[in-house]
């Protein structure tokens, strides 16, 4: 890299860091207050996190600092461990934060970077929504100037009308002003993205909230009379920001409650960080892959340092990171600059910060909480499937009623129960859970990576598939085949979608095949899909898979017809000697060309019966011809060997084309006609497409490539081949 590139890169990172720091400051203060920590604790976490992770981290454009997922556990820790004394609770919580940092560091060394994959996506979503609801309800009270009310989520929810009426009946002027600022701040947060003004968007929404509060204060000091909001409702910062580090209190280390807190913090912070890193990788304009284990180590170390300085946990945060990316950050230095600006800002503007009312910060958090539990989340869950909504609500409610760890474990258990009920088979999971179920190799013929999965694939064993997928260079082509897999759940499909995007961004492709015949009763592409019970296979009541959508697009591109199910086609293979003995079970995903003379379809057929039965799923191309041609089979590997059992059929030699004769098997019962058919032009044409297996019954040709369904790209190539073949023969 030359100097100019470094400098311009540096400049964009400095700018991005600055913009992020504007958002980070109010968020850090607000999150700390909501967690029951002193406001400065959030700033410490941001600054320490920014510096440590920028130097040691393994991701590229992420921003680190206090996270919203931790608010609930940390507040719980402070209240429970302090037994009512918030200051003592804070010191105990710091000890827990430090130990969770140690655990995170350990996770990093033990390469637990894929920990979040062990939890069902829906259960995690349910837990996050529960966190969102808790934050929303708690901060709603603060937003209206009520710092006293405590209670469970349900009590808080039921208390909201009383909260508002009490404000009208008993509220002081100061409280009125504070609540007013809170409500206006919330309106700013909600309508920020809807206001299309370039001037307005120069400053991020949380900063507008801060500016509003400062403007309010400035107005009253200008008019005289001072700020009407009482000191208790304003941010309190220590007199000397650089001195007076609190001493964490480790004395409760013998108590199980303390370790419960440590485990919860570790779990939530690692899940939040890993999910954020995964999401940010998809945003990175340079398409780099984050080293999650290295990042875990850096986050662990940063948390330890932050804890000793009196700060909160350091996690990777998604909202700030995406702002970072949007402002053209391109490496970790942006995280460092965000920390540096934050540090300077807090030092320079500490007097101003002390004038910000808690209500305006609470408004920011109410909005954050709402985002985690927005109705859109519920709707999405319902769209994916009713059972997902059930798991989601179970996790959400049990998290609200108990605690995060119990909640997510109940969610995990509920997901498993739903899977067992959907499949009506416990043994599918119990028998195969510990067995390896993934095969990956590079296909010699195509140089594609083939990944086959058998038994089942859910959150329980997704890590096995994931480890294999991670080893495929993402600029290559990969085919993931589920045709031998009975059950695939939502978590896996969502993660695979993620992989599809990553491959696509790097110029490769990851294609999923073998899912089209699985049963589902939802139209969402991520819905669970099961192959059981086999007998009740419906013909597509549910939604289409991505492959089906791609095939449909392929048909439409050509102006052809696409049909999911095509019952009338079942008989068509009977005229072909090779397929005579097979019984076609289903023909589906049919694409039909001009005048129905060309068609491509997936087919399920079986050979033999009862115990000797073998099921085959593949994609065939059928080319109907105008004239008569000889009956023959063309094959490089003699896979259509069955023909040789039929009377009078031999392998035919072509003395004029020794190479063609040596490389391919052409079989038929009329050597003379066949030799006449394969003239020089045909020989060179067929040689060029030697990887297809071609069957002619005199009137039409059946073309096959693999004994598995073709990927959309392969299907497109087959269609082109079919058109060329028809052109060549029909002339």
């Amino acid at each position, binding site marked *: 890299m030359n100097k100019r590139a470094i400098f311009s890169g540096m400049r964009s990172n400095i700018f991005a860091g600055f913009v992020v720091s504007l958002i980070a400051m109010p968020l850090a203060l607000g999150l700390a207050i909501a967690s029951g920590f002193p406001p400065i604790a959030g700033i410490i976490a941001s600054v320490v996190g920014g510096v440590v992770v920028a130097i040691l981290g*393994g991701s590229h454009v992420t921003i680190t600092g206090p996270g919203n997922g931790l608010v609930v556990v940390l507040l719980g820790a402070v209240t429970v461990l302090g037994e009512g004394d918030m200051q003592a609770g804070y010191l105990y919580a710091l000890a827990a934060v430090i130990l969770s940092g140690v655990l995170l560091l350990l996770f990093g060394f033990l390469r637990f970077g894929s920990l979040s994959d062990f939890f069902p996506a829906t259960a995690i979503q349910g837990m996050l929504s529960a966190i969102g609801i808790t934050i929303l309800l708690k901060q709603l009270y603060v937003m209206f100037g009520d710092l006293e009310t405590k209670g469970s989520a349900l009590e808080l929810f039921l208390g909201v009308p009383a909260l508002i009426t009490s404000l009208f009946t008993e509220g002081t002027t100061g409280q009125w002003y504070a609540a007013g600022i809170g409500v206006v701040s919330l309106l700013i947060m909600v309508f920020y993205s809807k206001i299309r003004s370039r001037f307005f968007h120069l400053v991020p929404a949380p900063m507008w909230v801060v500016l509003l509060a400062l403007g309010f204060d400035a107005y009253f000091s200008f008019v005289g009379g001072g700020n009407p909001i009482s000191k208790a409702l304003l941010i309190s910062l220590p007199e000397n920001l650089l001195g007076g580090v609190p001493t964490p209190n480790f004395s409760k280390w013998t108590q199980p409650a303390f370790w419960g807190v440590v485990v919860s913090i570790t779990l939530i912070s690692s899940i939040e960080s890993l999910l954020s890193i995964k999401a940010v990788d998809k945003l990175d304009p340079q398409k780099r892959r984050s080293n999650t*284990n*290295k990042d875990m180590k850096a986050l662990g170390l940063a948390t330890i340092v932050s804890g000793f300085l009196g700060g909160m946990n350091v996690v990777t945060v998604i909202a700030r990171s995406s702002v970072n990316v949007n402002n053209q950050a391109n490496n970790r230095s942006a995280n460092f600059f965000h920390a540096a600006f934050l540090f300077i800002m807090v030092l320079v503007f500490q007097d101003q910060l002390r004038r910000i009312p808690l209500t305006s910060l609470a408004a920011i958090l109410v909005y954050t909480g709402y985002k985690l539990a927005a109705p859109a989340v519920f709707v999405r869950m319902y769209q994916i499937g009713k059972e997902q909504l059930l798991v989601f609500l179970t996790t959400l409610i049990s998290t609200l009623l108990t605690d995060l760890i119990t909640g997510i474990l109940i969610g995990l258990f509920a997901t498993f129960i739903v899977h067992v009920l959907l499949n009506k088979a416990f043994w599918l999971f119990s028998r195969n859970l510990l067995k*390896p179920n993934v095969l990956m190799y590079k296909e010699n013929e195509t140089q594609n990576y083939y990944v086959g999965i058998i038994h089942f694939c859910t959150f329980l064993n997704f890590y096995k598939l994931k480890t294999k997928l991670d080893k495929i260079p993402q600029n290559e082509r990969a085919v993931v085949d589920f045709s031998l897999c009975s059950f695939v759940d939502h978590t896996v499909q969502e993660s695979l979608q993620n992989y599809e995007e990553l491959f696509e961004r790097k110029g490769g492709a990851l294609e999923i095949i073998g899912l089209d015949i699985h049963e589902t009763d939802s139209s969402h592409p991520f819905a669970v899909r099961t192959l059981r019970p086999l007998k009740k296979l419906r013909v597509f009541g549910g939604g289409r898979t991505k492959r089906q959508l791609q095939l449909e697009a392929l048909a439409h591109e050509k102006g052809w017809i696409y049909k999911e199910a095509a019952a009338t086609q079942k008989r068509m293979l009977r005229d072909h000697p090779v397929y005579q003995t097979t019984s076609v079970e289903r023909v589906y995903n049919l694409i039909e060309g001009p005048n129905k003379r060309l068609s491509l379809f997936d087919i399920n057929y079986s050979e033999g019966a009862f115990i000797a*039965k073998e099921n085959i799923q593949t994609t065939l191309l059928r080319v109907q011809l105008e004239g008569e041609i000889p009956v023959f089979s063309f094959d490089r*590997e003699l896979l259509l060997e069955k023909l040789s059992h039929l009377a009078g059929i031999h392998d035919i030699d072509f003395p004029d084309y020794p190479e063609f004769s040596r490389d391919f098997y052409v079989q038929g019962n009329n050597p003379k006609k066949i030799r006449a058919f394969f003239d020089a032009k045909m020989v060179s044409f067929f040689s060029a497409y030697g990887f297809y297996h071609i069957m002619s019954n005199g009137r039409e040709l059946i073309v096959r490539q693999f004994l598995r369904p073709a990927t959309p790209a392969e299907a497109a190539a087959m269609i082109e081949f079919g058109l060329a073949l028809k052109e060549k023969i029909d002339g």
Partner: protein
Amino acid sequence: MQQKQYNTIVVGVAFSPNIQANVFEALRMSEMFNASLVMVHVGEKTSEKEAALTKIIAGFEGNPPPFRVFWRAGSPVEVLLNACTSERADLLILGAIKREGLLKYYLGSVARKITRNAPCDVLLLIKPSVNRVACASGVVNGLAHPKTEEAIDRAFYVLSNLGAQKLTIVEEIPEDSVAIKVDDDRSLRKSTIAKERIKLRENSRVQRLLNDIPEQVKENLELIVQPIFGRRGYSIGHYARVSRADLLVMNAPSKLTLWDRLFPHDLEYILSDLPTDVLIVR
């Protein structure tokens, strides 16, 4: 190297719904390998059973090759193993059981015991058929193991006698042979290069093994070498299933302890869920 020939084939005959298919497969095998056939029935010899067997064999198309029937009561495991030893069998044919309602096959406990202790090669049939179904392709392991050479050699012998066209030698390479852990783009690049290197090395090892096999045996079969990075004993079974191979040839493990049964490896993965017909070379 002198190729082993199958001179004597032993098959266990039980009066199950599968009996006709099992008997026919055995008769065909004995025809194809030009070997003498011994049918072993565990149980008393009765005239009804004898008549039933004769009736079944009468349905065999063409002239059935000569065979002997061996009737003896006792424990199936002992009777069959003793018969193999006393008849100096080269090959023992056993049928597998299909898992209820599913396309999955496994070995019953009797067959499993016999497989572990048989003194000769064992052929496990998952779907014996009354009519001949041609065997088109086979898969054999290419592990770095002293017995591999013999397994490959036997695969050539058996497949060419069965009239197959294709043989795939699968080299299972343990994942941990690549020392580089994939964390990010750079480590991925390194590990991909390391894998390519290992593949080349393994391929040349297999080529050396193949050089020892006489040309005339090789020329009838199309040969493919497929390296796979994955769990030993598991990947080859899954590959055989995916590639729709008709026969999987494996070496018998050196020894099996209780430990192996608790923590399945190599052959155990395949025995617990047979992907296709399996020949175990001893």
